[in-house]
């Protein structure tokens, strides 16, 4: 048995968590949006720029060799972190959205009218819009999984409607919902996709930072995620794809380093992953992401997942005591990630967010880039609190206190129609 998880020690690694906002300590509950960064990640990026900076692959001098070793070292570490069989399967992108666009663009090259792409209604816009664009380009049809009342993928309705069938060529589903927190049965959906010969793509933006990741266990052919939600810097994302699949796909962006031989009459292209990495890559960001992965690996992804599970269960229980608060998505911490979306009766999410912010509590209000899901749930928008490896029970208490204050603030003022001015 390993050491108990020491959240106070973890917090000391994140200088920003010491900030105070007016009279209140910062209560950062927006990690599903972006995570905070431990000092060592920032230091690693600074050290790269100050001591090892050069372009990769094409620079033949000592610094070039150091930068290349650091960049490719990050690739190997990421492959190991997600259980990828080969380092060549890790393609760097600028974020998860670009990774999903890369997947949609290259996978749809072979599609045409009559072919079907399947997503779900709970997807982030970045796992909807690239596929809509692919359908517009190719004439393929976009279909989607609905959700149950509890906010889980409606597998029964999908089976009844023949959602995944012989026309299905791609299935692209989120591992963990950024709104509902739902952890989807990705391996089961992947088996359904593979049974009809479709490619299975997984949006791991919320899953990879929160849960131990194994591409084999997920059963997918492609996995997209981003660095900045996993304690790494912004500006770097990853598309993992099985080598066989990547090798069969056309390039995405054209440019330097993605080629084999360029002639004015035509070009041939590099093997994966370089075929998909045109131009100078996010080198310092790869160094930062590598350090972030070292950091979370040292804490233990299983420990991080357990900590989040514990906090999510506590938050769900405490938040449901707030008058007029409705949780969107599963209300028990079973197959559920650390993002909790909610509405507060009679108070618009923007106003909730503003009141919470005045007490140092940072959450998100709006669509969370998932408007179709909000339409499906029949709510205009919502608030979202999300926890991560540095979140404490005391912060959940501060959230709940601030929500009570918000309810009282607006309840008192909005309930009295025609009151004295």
């Amino acid at each position, binding site marked *: 048995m390993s050491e108990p998880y020491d959240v106070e020690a973890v917090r000391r690694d994140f200088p920003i968590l010491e900030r105070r906002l007016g009279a209140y300590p910062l209560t950062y509950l927006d990690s599903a949006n972006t995570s905070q960064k431990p000092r060592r990640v920032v230091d690693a990026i600074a050290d790269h720029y100050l001591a090892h900076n050069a372009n990769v692959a094409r620079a033949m001098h000592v610094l070039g060799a150091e930068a290349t070793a650091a960049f490719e070292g990050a690739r190997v570490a990421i492959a190991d972190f997600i259980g990828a069989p080969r380092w060549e399967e890790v393609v760097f992108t600028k974020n998860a959205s670009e990774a999903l666009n890369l997947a949609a663009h290259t996978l749809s090259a072979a599609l045409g009218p009559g072919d079907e792409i399947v997503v779900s209604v709970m997807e982030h816009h970045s796992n909807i819009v690239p596929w809509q664009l692919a359908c517009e380009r190719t004439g393929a049809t976009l279909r989607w999984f609905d959700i149950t009342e509890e906010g889980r993928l409606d597998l029964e309705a999908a089976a009844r409607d023949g959602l995944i069938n012989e026309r299905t060529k791609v299935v692209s589903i989120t591992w963990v919902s950024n709104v509902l927190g739902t952890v989807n049965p990705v391996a089961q959906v992947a088996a359904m996709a593979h049974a009809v010969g479709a490619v299975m793509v997984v949006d791991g933006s919320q899953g990879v930072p929160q849960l131990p990741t194994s591409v084999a266990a997920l059963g997918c052919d492609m996995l997209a995620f981003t660095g900045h939600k996993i304690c790494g810097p912004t500006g770097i994302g990853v598309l993992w794809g099985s080598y066989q699949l990547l090798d069969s796909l056309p390039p995405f962006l054209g440019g330097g380093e993605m080629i084999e031989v360029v002639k004015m009459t035509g070009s041939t292209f590099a093997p994966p992953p370089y075929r998909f990495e045109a131009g100078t890559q996010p080198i310092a960001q790869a160094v930062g992401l590598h350090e972030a992965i070292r950091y979370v690996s040292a804490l233990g992804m299983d420990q991080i997942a357990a900590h989040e599970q514990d906090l999510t269960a506590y938050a769900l229980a405490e938040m449901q005591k707030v008058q007029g608060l409705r949780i969107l998505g599963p209300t028990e911490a079973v197959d559920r990630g650390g993002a909790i979306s909610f509405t507060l009766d009679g108070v*618009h999410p*923007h106003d909730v967010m*503003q*009141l919470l912010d*005045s007490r140092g509590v940072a959450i998100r209000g709006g669509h969370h880039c998932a*408007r179709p899901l909000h339409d499906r749930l029949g709510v205009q928008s919502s608030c979202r609190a999300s926890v991560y490896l540095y979140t404490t029970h005391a912060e959940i208490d501060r959230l709940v206190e601030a929500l009570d204050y918000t309810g009282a*603030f*607006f309840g008192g*003022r*909005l309930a009295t129609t025609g009151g004295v001015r």
Partner: protein
Amino acid sequence: MSVEQLYQEIILDHYRVKRNAGLREPYDVEVHHVNPSCGDELTLRVTVADGAVTDVSYEAVGCSISQASTSVMTELVIGGSPAHALELYDGFQKMIQGQGKVSLDEAVFEDAVAFEGVAQFPARVKCAMLGWSAVRDALLRVQASAKEES
């Protein structure tokens, strides 16, 4: 600037009881404006007759700031000339983007002065502007179509 100062009683009052709310016929132009980051949506209609804005009707979903601002705007704009409405837009926009350094003439802007606090909260500027941007768009369209006809 405290959050209590942001949520002035006048703002909450307009949020509670929205003036001129609902979509009415007849109208000259209808516009639909959204704030994609937060999902606020507004459908707004204007009617112009004999050189005056005779009606502004609307249906909206959104936060207290955007709803109240739209409500206040209709009270200021209805009955005046389109040119006056566009002047009010300019004045309100200057104030709201003035980071608290620009104040409004209460004799002209009436309840809209309550939004001076919003200028200190950059994230809410778009909320306060939603109704104003929509009415400006609608009035400019009315003017454009009048020009085409003449």
